């Protein structure tokens, strides 16, 4: 809202520097966006929060200045001289949709002379960034900016049937607005019509056919109150936002409608002459009386942490236009149940008890309804700077959750492994959402509006986003791209909010086994004792010969592998890479963040390298399991070394698994023959179970 300094001065005396005024206003809740000089005047740009539509006007800001500086506010009387003809004989008004239009006041001025506005008025409008149009239209805009009540002026001669009908549109009805665009109206919009056709989109914009022109002689002045929600949806649906719709959306002062109508007529008579018909056609509901609000003084320190003297409280609230009530009758007390001492003789004022003040808010403050609203008003004007910033707040214990600690460890291990943390959007393009779906094949959730262009699917995997980040890095020529992300994926559940799983995804230039090793290292760091099991990935997005799915115990933990060439092509990647995605939730449960001490062995271990020749289909994990089963209690370590293939030396369809075994006895040093014996025992078991042969050398 732009406020003209000269205009504001008309209602309240301003003798302070403008910087001081804007600072005071800022500290009272009106952010100062800037001040610029316009033709000898100052245009002060203030940000008005949505709860204060009453301040979308010069009078509104003048009232705030009056309260802040303790100065009277001069409101014009708005008493236009009336002619003899009763307005009822000229025009009839019907509201057919009282849910959309609460009230409609029409006045008629006949015999105006349309012409340019005088310099003072044109200058005022220009200061606010509005272009002057003609004396009648400018008068209505002036009053809008003066008191915040939008008005509309019609060329009365063009209103057919001499009546105004406020109704919903008929099917397919259109209107050409004063911006000369044609709008098709939708069922729940509020239309201002004459007997035949729409003449304005109520509260949003007037129609072109009935607008004031140079040939206009008779003017109908509309002042109305429309339903805020209806105006908001209409303005949005039509993409048509105006000074009027902005104010009606937030709500106008119901008691200011008639004042604005009179004030506008007064100005038109002054600027364009003519004669005002007597009275007004005033249709619709009348403003209802505001309920009184009781403010208990003790609530001020309870909420604000400071005492405000009762006299000060009263002074502030009265300055803001509230009126003190003589009694509390009919007031629903916010303090029901609290003690009330009836000692009115000791009370400082006649109004109510000494421990409270009961007030009625002014009609323009629809935001004041509750005790807490008054507490805020007192604090705002009294000044938040009076609240201390150094009270002692009681201490309280706080602990980091297991989840936080696990995620932090995971992050640090991954960074330690040379991976950079990425963050990507949770909502992706539909094609991406299908690119990698090993977890869940149910139809993904969608947003009504895309997050960014084309992205409207809640992701069920982080990998596509991460691979896209990889592509971004490839395209700028970054050589090493090692990325991980920890975020949630969204798995739909019938009749409920989606299941939000926290997952970890990695993309790397390393080999499949190196990436798998990082995941194994994570388990080691978190001291997870659940056995890790690998099975073929069976996932079309991963290369068969270099990927697996991982289980922790019986639960699917995740996937790791080289991406398939299909996925590489789909994600438009220049180079093959590896990727992994695992569920972090499983780690939260299984992690042991307080490991228990195990005594360190006193005697040396003795190692044996074993080279077992087996058939190709025999898997390492199965051999290792046999080794553990047959190795006895002293077997301490079974370490995989490598797989060796050589058809000439080993035979077709054979491979050799090289491993290192370590044996240790807790209470003495093992001898070499003992170790050999254990090794032989293991080899025999492997031979029996897997057909393995010990390979010499």
């Amino acid at each position, binding site marked *: 809202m732009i406020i003209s300094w000269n205009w504001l001065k008309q209602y309240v005396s301003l003798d302070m520097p403008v910087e001081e005024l804007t600072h005071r206003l800022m500290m009272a809740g009106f952010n100062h966006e800037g001040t610029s000089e316009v033709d000898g005047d100052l245009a002060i740009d203030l940000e008005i929060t949505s709860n204060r539509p009453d301040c979308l006007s010069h009078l509104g800001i003048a009232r705030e200045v009056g309260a802040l500086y303790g100065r009277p506010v001069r409101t014009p009387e708005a008493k236009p001289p009336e002619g003899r003809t009763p307005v009822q004989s000229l025009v009839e008004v019907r509201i057919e949709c009282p849910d959309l239009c609460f009230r409609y006041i029409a006045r008629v001025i006949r015999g105006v002379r349309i012409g340019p506005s005088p310099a003072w008025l044109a200058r005022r409008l220009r200061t606010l960034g509005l272009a002057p149009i003609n004396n009648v239209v400018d008068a209505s805009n002036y009053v809008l900016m003066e008191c915040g009540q939008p008005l509309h002026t019609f060329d009365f001669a063009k209103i057919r049937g001499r009546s105004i009908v406020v109704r919903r549109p008929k099917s397919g009805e259109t209107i050409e607005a004063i911006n000369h665009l044609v709008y098709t109206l939708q069922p729940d919009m509020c239309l201002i019509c004459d007997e035949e056709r729409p003449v304005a989109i109520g509260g949003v914009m007037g129609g072109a056919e009935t607008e004031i022109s140079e040939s206009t002689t008779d003017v109908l002045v509309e002042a109305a109150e429309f339903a805020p929600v209806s105006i908001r949806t209409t303005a949005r649906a039509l993409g048509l936002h105006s000074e009027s719709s902005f104010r009606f959306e937030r709500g106008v002062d119901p008691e200011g409608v008639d004042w604005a109508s009179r004030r506008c007529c007064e100005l038109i008579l002054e600027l364009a002459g003519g004669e005002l018909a007597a009275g007004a056609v005033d249709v619709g509901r009348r403003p209802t009386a505001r309920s009184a609000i009781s403010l208990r003084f003790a609530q001020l320190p309870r909420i604000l942490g400071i005492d405000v003297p009762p006299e000060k409280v009263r002074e502030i609230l009265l300055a803001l236009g509230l009126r003190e009530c003589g009694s509390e009758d009919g007031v629903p007390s916010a303090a029901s149940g609290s003690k009330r001492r009836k000692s009115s003789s000791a009370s400082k004022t006649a109004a109510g008890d000494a421990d409270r003040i009961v007030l009625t808010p002014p009609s323009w403050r629809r935001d004041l309804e509750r005790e807490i609203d008054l507490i805020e008003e007192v604090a705002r004007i009294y000044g938040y700077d009076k609240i201390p910033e150094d009270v002692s707040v009681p201490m309280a214990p706080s602990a980091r959750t297991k989840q936080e600690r696990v995620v932090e460890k995971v992050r640090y291990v991954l960074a330690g492994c040379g991976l950079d943390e990425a963050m990507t959007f*949770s909502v992706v393009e539909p094609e991406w959402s299908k690119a990698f779906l090993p977890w869940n094949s149910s139809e993904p959730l969608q947003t009504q*509006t895309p997050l960014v262009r084309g992205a409207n699917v809640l992701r069920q995997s982080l990998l596509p986003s991460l691979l896209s980040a990889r592509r971004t890095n490839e395209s700028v020529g970054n050589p090493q791209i090692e990325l991980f992300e920890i975020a949630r994926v969204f798995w739909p559940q019938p009749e409920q909010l989606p299941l939000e799983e926290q997952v970890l995804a990695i993309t790397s230039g390393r080999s499949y086994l190196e990436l798998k090793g990082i995941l194994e290292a994570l388990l080691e760091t978190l001291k997870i004792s659940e056995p890790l099991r690998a099975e073929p990935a069976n996932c079309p997005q991963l290369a068969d010969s270099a990927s697996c799915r991982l289980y922790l115990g019986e639960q699917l933990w995740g996937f790791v592998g080289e991406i398939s060439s299909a996925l590489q092509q789909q994600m438009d990647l220049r180079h093959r890479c590896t990727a992994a995605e695992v569920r972090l939730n499983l780690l939260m449960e299984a992690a042991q963040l307080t490991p228990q001490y195990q005594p360190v062995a006193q005697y040396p271990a003795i190692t044996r390298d074993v080279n077992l020749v087996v058939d190709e289909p025999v898997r390492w994990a199965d051999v290792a399991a046999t080794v553990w089963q047959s190795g006895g209690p002293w077997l301490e370590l079974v370490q995989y070394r490598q797989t060796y293939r050589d058809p000439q030396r080993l035979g077709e369809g054979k491979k050799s698994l090289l491993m290192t075994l370590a044996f240790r006895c807790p209470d003495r040093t093992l001898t070499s023959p003992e170790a050999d014996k254990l090794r032989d025992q293991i080899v025999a078991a492997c031979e029996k179970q897997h057909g393995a042969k010990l390979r010499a050398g």
Partner: protein
Amino acid sequence: MTLQEFLAELELFASEANRCFQAAGDLTALEAARIEFLGARSGRLKQLQKSLGQLPSVDRPQAGQRFHQVRREVESAFQAAQERLADRQKTVRSAEVFDPTIPGVRPVVGHLHPITQTIDQLKEIMGRLGFSLADGPEVEDEWHNFEALNIPPDHPARDPLDNFYLAAASRLAGGAGPSMLLRSQTSTVQIRVMERQKPPVRIIAVGRVYRPDTPDQTHSPMFHQIEGLLVDRRVTMADLKSVLRMLGMSYFHGEVHIRFRPSFFPFTEPSVEIDMNWQGRWIEMGGAGMVDPNVLRAVGYDPEEVSGFAFGLGIERLCMRQHGIDDIREFYRNDVRFLRQF
């Protein structure tokens, strides 16, 4: 030759041999010295061995012992000299010069996202102030995102254009129930915590929030918030100001003052904007206020019994100011040249 003379001869031999071996400047000189002292045919050691044989047999054991000792010493001195010269020769031959400034072999260390680092910093500070982390879903129902937060159905904040509602097919209760949406604020977590816990409540919530905004230098449709909530008996705005000041002093490492400017949020009243004065400048930090009585009632608390404060800060804005980042989109582009700066 007497025993005395033999032993003296032996010592002289040892000291001269050692000196010559040490002084040899290259392998040729060393070889010459070796022939002179240790030569198999006519080296001085050979001469001494002959002298040893001519000593009276009674002196021979003592002399022999010393002779072998000296021989070992001199031989190892020769070996040491040989190794020293061989090393030097090797270097000289390939014309290599050792360069101490060659960099070490560096392990690659990854980087945590700057947003994570800012979050960790704030979480740590709030943890010290006694606030524990609470969590809630990113996809919310309208009750937690709006209704319970004193945002009734007609409120403009619920406009479909200002929120990421999920498509109609994914409504709750079989497509007919209330809508779901990506949460527009972390305040939803306040409600979830208060619904399951009696006062006192002293939590922070951190996470992703979503609001339709066309991405530009300062806007992103997804960003992060941190939110603090303290509800108890006798919690006042002075407590709010004091906690925020402690947060500011920990965050900025120094003296900070707090300024409140009146503002408007549906879920707090009074509502304020928080400014922090750091080194003479006022910095906008976020929004705060006293929990609205309607919110307390919505979770079954009695606003006559308890009061509370809440505040919310935008993580991206703090992080950008902290590191001098001028484009919020960098956070989500994930160029490793950006990520590796932090």
